C-alpha cells in the first residue's frame, strides 16, 4: 500500500517539477480592494473578448499591493498593482532599490466616498466636514477650549442633526480610502471648526497640528473597519444609529438597504463627482511594470483594453458599475500606447 503511494507521489512530483518551469501566460494583478471590482469586470471581459487567458486579480489593499509590486522584476512577481491613491515617493524608492525602475502610471477614473446609514435610521441627511470632525475627532474645540471629545450625540454640537448616539464606521489605516477620508473630511473639518488654529495657538507646529487633527477618538464612537465594505454594511445593519463610509459603487448596489447623506450640500452621484462639486472623491490608479511588457503575454493589451473608451468611457461597463469616468482618458490611452513611464514625461 505504502510503496505504491510513494511511487505515485514521486511520479506526480517529477511530472509537476518538469512543467513548473513553463512561462506564466496570464497577467497577475494585486492591490486595492476599491479597484478590485473594476479590475475583475475588466479581467472577465478581457478573457472573453481576446485570446489571452483571464488575468488573476488579487485584493489586499493599496499599500500591500504596491509592496508586492516593488518586490522585483520577474515572473514570480506581480505585473500590475491596483491603488486607490497615487504611489508615494517612498514606494518609488523601494521599487528602484529592487530593480523596478520603469513604472507606468494609469489613472482609470474617479471614485466617490459616501456616508450612508440604515434606510430606517435617524434622519442623517446633510453633513458638512466639520460635523464629522466634531463627532469623531480626538480633540475638539468646545466653547473656545481644546478638550477631549465630549460629544455623545450628534445634536450635542449641531442642533440641526438628530439626537442619536454617534457611531461611525470608518475605513482602517491599511485602506487607501482612509487617506482620502482624512484629507478631505477630517482635515477640512478641523480647519473649518477652528480647532487647528487653536492647536497652533497653543504652541503646536503646523505639522503637529495636522497630525493631531487626524487623530480619531478611541472611546468606541468611531470604529475602524479593516475588512471590505460588506463588513461596514453588516455593522450598519446591526446598529440603527450607525453611519458608514462606503464607495459610491457599493452604495449604488445597495440602495435598498442604505440611504446616503449629502456632504457640504451636494449629494454624491457620478455627475457631481465628475464635475468636482462633491468634495470627497479620489482618482483610482493602476501601475504597470514596463519590464514585464513583452515578457508576460497580454500585459499591454490588458492595459489598453482597460482604458478603452468602450470599457472605461462614460457609457462603458465600469461607469455603469459606479466608476466616474476620467475626462482625460484619451491622454491615458496615448500614454499606454507609447509606454510612457513615470518621471520620463516631466
Amino acid at each position, binding site marked *: 500500500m505504502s510503496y505504491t503511494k510513494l511511487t505515485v507521489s514521486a511520479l506526480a512530483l517529477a511530472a509537476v517539477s518538469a512543467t513548473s518551469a513553463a512561462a506564466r501566460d496570464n497577467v497577475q494583478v494585486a492591490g486595492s480592494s476599491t479597484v478590485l471590482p473594476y479590475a475583475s469586470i475588466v*479581467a472577465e471581459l478581457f478573457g*472573453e473578448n481576446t485570446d489571452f487567458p483571464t488575468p488573476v486579480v488579487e485584493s489586499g489593499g493599496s499599500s500591500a499591493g504596491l509592496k508586492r509590486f516593488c518586490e522585483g522584476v520577474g515572473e514570480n512577481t506581480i505585473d500590475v498593482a491596483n491603488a486607490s491613491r497615487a504611489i508615494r515617493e517612498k514606494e518609488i524608492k523601494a521599487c528602484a532599490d529592487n530593480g523596478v525602475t520603469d513604472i507606468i502610471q494609469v489613472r482609470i477614473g474617479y471614485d466617490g466616498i459616501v456616508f450612508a446609514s440604515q434606510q430606517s435610521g435617524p434622519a442623517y441627511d446633510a453633513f458638512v466636514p466639520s460635523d464629522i470632525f466634531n463627532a469623531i475627532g480626538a480633540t475638539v474645540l468646545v466653547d473656545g477650549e481644546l478638550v477631549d471629545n465630549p460629544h455623545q450625540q450628534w445634536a450635542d454640537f449641531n442642533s440641526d442633526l438628530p439626537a442619536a448616539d454617534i457611531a461611525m464606521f470608518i475605513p482602517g489605516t491599511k485602506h487607501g480610502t482612509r487617506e482620502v477620508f482624512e484629507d478631505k473630511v477630517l482635515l477640512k473639518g478641523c480647519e473649518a471648526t477652528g480647532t487647528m488654529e487653536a492647536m497652533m495657538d497653543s504652541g503646536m507646529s503646523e505639522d503637529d497640528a495636522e497630525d493631531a487633527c487626524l487623530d480619531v477618538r478611541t472611546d468606541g464612537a468611531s470604529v475602524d473597519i479593516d475588512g471590505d465594505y460588506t463588513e461596514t454594511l453588516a455593522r450598519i445593519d446591526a446598529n440603527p444609529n450607525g453611519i458608514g463610509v462606503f464607495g459610491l459603487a457599493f452604495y449604488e448596489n445597495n440602495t435598498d438597504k442604505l440611504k446616503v447623506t449629502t456632504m457640504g450640500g451636494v449629494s454624491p452621484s457620478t455627475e457631481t463627482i465628475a464635475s468636482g462639486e462633491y468634495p470627497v472623491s479620489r482618482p483610482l490608479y493602476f501601475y504597470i511594470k514596463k519590464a514585464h511588457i513583452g515578457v508576460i503575454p497580454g500585459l499591454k493589451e490588458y492595459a489598453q483594453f482597460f482604458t478603452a473608451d468602450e470599457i472605461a468611457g462614460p457609457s462603458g461597463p465600469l461607469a*455603469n458599475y459606479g466608476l466616474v469616468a476620467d475626462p482625460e482618458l484619451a491622454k491615458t490611452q496615448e500614454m499606454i500606447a507609447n509606454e510612457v513611464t513615470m518621471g520620463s514625461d516631466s
Partner: protein
Amino acid sequence: MTNASLNTGGEAPKRSLRAQDALTKRRNAAERRFKAYGMAAIAVGLFFLAVLAVSIVRSGAPAFTRTVVEVELTVSPADIDAAESQLFKTKAYQDLFVAALDRQLTNNGVEVAFDPKAIERLLGKVGSTMREFYQANPAKVGKPVKFELAAASRVDRYLNGELTRDAIQDSRFMMKTDLDLVDVMVDTGVMKSSFNWTFITGADSGVDNPGGAGIGASVVGSFFMMLVVLVLSLPIGVAASIYLEEFAPQNRFTDLIEVNISNLAAVPSIVFGILGLAVFIQFMHLPQSAPLVGGLVLTLMTLPTIIISTRASLKAVPPSIRDAALGVGASKMQSVFHHVLPLAMPGILTGTIIGLAQALGETAPLLLIGMVGFVARGYPDGVVSGFVDPNSAMPAQIYTWAARADASFYEKAWGGIIVLLAFLLTMNIIAIILRRRFERRW
C-alpha cells in the same frame, strides 16, 4: 443471600429491601439528572445543527435557480462580422439579443410601455454565452436559434420575493417601472425560472455579472489541491510515524521531535501561508495562484495531524501481535508492514480524512499565495495544467463572493457552502467505505 449474611452480625434490619433509603434515592436521582443533562446536551447540539442546516439551505437554495429569458433569434453572418470587428465583442452580441427581444415584445403587443434601455437593465451579461455558442457552432449562423439566457440578478431577487417593489430605488440598475415589464414577461412565459447549471459548472465572474458566476472551476481547484495533500502527506506522515513509533530509539532527540510535532499541529494556518509564499513562490519559483502550491502549503498544515493520529492508532495495536510475529521469526520490518500497519489502517484513514477535511476548508494560507481574489481561468486543459494553472479553491471562492457589493453574490456564497459540504460529505463517505473494508477485529 449476601444481604442476609451481612445483616447477621449487627442489629436486625429495620427497612425493607423494596423501599429505597435516602442514600439510594439520592444516587438514583443523580443518575437520572446526569442522563437528563446528557440528553439536553445532545438536544442543544441537534438544535444548532438544525438551525445551521436550515439557514444554509434557505440562504443557499436561490443560488441554484435563476431566471432566464427565452428568445428565438437569427443572427446573420454580417452581424457576426460586425460584432467580431469590435474591441468589445460581447457587448455587440448583447445588443443583438436586446434588439431581438425588443422586436419580439413589440410584435406580441405588450401593453406596457418600455424602452430598449429597460430591456438592457433586465438582462444579465449574455453576450459572452452567445459568442461562445456561435464560435462553437458556426453552422448555426443565419438559422433561427432559441436562446435561454440569464436575467439580471435584481430580477431574480424580485421574483424570489427578496426585493420588494417598495424597496427598489430608481437607479441605473433598475427602475420601478421595469417591474411592470418583468410581470408581463413572466405572464407571457418569456421569462421563467430554471435550474442554474452555470452555478454548478461555471467559473467566477466579474462583480457586475452575478448570473454568470459558478463554483465548478474552484471545485476542480480544490480537488487538485486535495490530491497533492493526499499524495504527499499520507506517505510522509505514515512513514514518519512508523519510524518514530516502531524503530526510533527513545532519547532526548526523538522526544524533542515529538514535542515539536504536537506543537506544529497547533500552529495557526496563516503561518504556513507565509512560509509557502517565501519558500515555494519566492525561493523555488513555483507559479502563483496554483493549486500545486496551495496543496504543498496545506500538506505542511496536515502532516502533524496525520502523524499524531497514525501514531495513536499504531500504539493501539496490541503488543501481543508484534511479539507473535517476532516469535515466529519475522523481522521487525515484516512484523510492522505485515501485521501492525494493516491493523492500524482504519485509524490512519480516519486521521487522514480529518486532516484533509481541515485542509479543504482552509482559506487563510491561500490568501498569501494568490488563490483568493478574482481567479476565473475556467477549467484546466489537462492534469498538469490542473496543478500549475491559476485556480481558486472552494473556501476562497466563497470568501470572495461574500465580500462583494451585489447581494446576489451573498446567495452564491451560501450556495457555495452547500457544494463545499457536499464535497466534504463525499470525502467522508469514501473514507468510511475504505475503513469498513480494512477494519479487522481481534
